[in-house]
């Protein structure tokens, strides 16, 4: 067993946070990698902000409660969150995702580029499907960050990717690669993973979005063979632009959109890890379920969801093998991410 996780849950709960970190967090040498990525991210973010130059004004027509208003905002600087700040704290709290011109989804912390109408969506909107998907995508994204935090250096962890979110499949997933054969985490390990993810959520990071060039992305993910492989494909589709997301210090490639902050994730369960390749490489699929804050579900109902998420989620498997458990619906890389 190469993974060192908390064996007794009560210990984890009672131990102080600092102690917990010192004992159970691995000493990153990949910490350097993460720092490097963040440095690049920060530099690029600053550069883009400085590039805005002379501030131009745009007119944003806000639709919704408390009243429809027209706001004069700064082009390429003001975000939908800034618009919400004009109204009240409650509006800011409820803004999970923005809808631009009635059709385009926009991240809450992404600067607006032109005059538009703005609607703010949240989990209890009339039609929350779009927000749900963004939530599911964000959970997949954060799961990667959590795994990076808790898996030890010698496991050789590389994040592979996470597929297009599908609520109906019953779980959000993140595919990872380890140099461990037949990793089979115990129930305690899985529980610790869930708790770690909930902790990550309570850290209340705003989720930032950044569009970078292919070269910078390649420099960021130079140590990850899978990302290196995927990047040319993605940049080809997006005219050389790679969209990155960051929560805390975790950065990953995703098409987006994502919800505005990690604080909206309340209840998380990681019920299973499946190996999805045969002998040659060790690709694992980590599956989980989560609920946004403000949703109460009985333990029984949540358990039903957990039981379902234990089975392998066969949506968009990254391997196109003739493995019997892998259905033939595994799409090409283009559909992933």
């Amino acid at each position: 067993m190469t993974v060192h996780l908390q064996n007794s849950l009560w210990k984890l709960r009672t131990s102080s946070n600092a102690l917990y970190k010192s004992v159970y967090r691995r000493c990153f040498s990949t910490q350097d990698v993460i720092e490097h990525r963040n440095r690049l991210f920060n530099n690029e973010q600053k550069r883009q902000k400085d590039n805005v130059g002379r501030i131009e004004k745009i007119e944003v027509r806000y639709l919704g409660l408390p009243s429809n208003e027209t706001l004069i905002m700064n082009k390429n600087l003001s975000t939908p969150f800034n618009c919400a700040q004009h109204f009240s704290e409650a509006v800011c709290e409820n803004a999970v995702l923005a809808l631009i011109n009635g059709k385009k989804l926009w991240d809450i912390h992404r600067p607006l580029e032109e005059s538009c109408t703005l609607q703010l969506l949240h989990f209890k909107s009339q039609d929350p499907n779009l927000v749900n998907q963004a939530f599911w995508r964000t959970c997949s994204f954060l799961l990667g960050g959590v795994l990076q935090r808790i898996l030890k250096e010698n496991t050789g962890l590389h994040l592979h990717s996470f597929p297009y979110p599908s609520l109906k499949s019953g779980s959000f997933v993140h595919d990872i690669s380890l140099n461990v054969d037949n990793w089979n985490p115990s129930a305690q390990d899985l529980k610790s993973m869930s708790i770690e993810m909930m902790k990550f959520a309570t850290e209340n990071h705003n989720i930032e979005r950044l569009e970078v060039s292919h070269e910078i992305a390649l420099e960021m993910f130079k140590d990850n063979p899978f990302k290196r492989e995927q990047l040319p494909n993605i940049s080809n589709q997006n005219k050389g632009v790679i969209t990155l997301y960051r929560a805390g210090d975790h950065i990953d490639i995703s098409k987006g959109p994502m919800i505005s902050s990690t604080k909206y994730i309340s209840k998380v369960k990681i019920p299973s890890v499946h190996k999805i390749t045969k002998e040659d490489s060790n690709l694992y699929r980590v599956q989980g379920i989560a609920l946004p804050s403000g949703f109460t579900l009985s333990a029984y109902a949540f358990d039903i969801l957990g039981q379902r998420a234990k089975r392998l989620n066969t949506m968009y498997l990254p391997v196109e093998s003739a493995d019997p458990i892998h259905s033939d619906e595994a799409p090409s890389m283009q559909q992933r991410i």
Partner: protein
Amino acid sequence: MLRKICKVNLIQNNLINSQYVIFRHLSAKAELNEAAESQEKKKTKKPKKALTDMRFKYPEFLPQPDNRLRNPVLERIMRKDMLDRRTQINIPEFYVGSILKLTISDPHSQGKTNSFVGICIQRDRTGLYSKFALRNVIDHQGIEVMYDLYDPAILKIEVLKLEKRLDDKLIYLKDALPEYSTIDVNMEPEILAEGGNIPVNDTVVKMKPFPWMQKWERQGLKGVEDLDKHLNLWRKQQKVKHDSPWDKYDLMKEYRKTITEEEQSEIFSEIFNRINKINEQHKQKAKAARRTISKPQNIG
């Protein structure tokens, strides 16, 4: 960063509503869009004025207002019967204060009729039970007769003088000087121009000295002279004691005594066409009768 809030195209209405909106509604109402905003809400239809104006002309078609005693089916059947009766006899428009001549068959001697001329002092009850009282003074003797409006024994109702008085009931004429309720039995009918307003007779009557049948001073009558000169101190005190100036503010008391506008319009729209047709028929019949009389006769 400098930002300004502009309020554009805000309807006054919206603005006022917005003061009372809070964010718990975000779940239900956040999906507002401009299309929904521009959509006008359905407005409730206001009843037509012509219909509700019929309430003065045909008060007996409205049911009595006490909900405990109402029976919608019976009311409907009654309205039908009333209209049927109206095809047989012309029941003209009249009000309390109008002078009527009524011809009725004598129940005690077959083939003979009685007629009575008097001022209408009261209209009461509804439907087929509706009644009215006529009063006259004949040979220094006050006479009041109460007739059922839809009594099949009634042969003819003529309006000699169509007018209103200041009060809804003229029962106080019992205690007024007899000159106010003395009417010439052979009075000729006064014809009013059609479509004009009904004139209001603002006669203020003088009362006889005590004893009175009712405590008229407590009833707030308009068509009666100042009654204080008839009252002794005790009765004046009692008047003040029993006065209820708050009654006019008692909205629900008022409401429980009325038939609402919506109900009125429903009832009158039901009878509107038929009653107009019946009136037209009676008018034509009267015209034809007049023509036969006025024909000059060629003698020799």
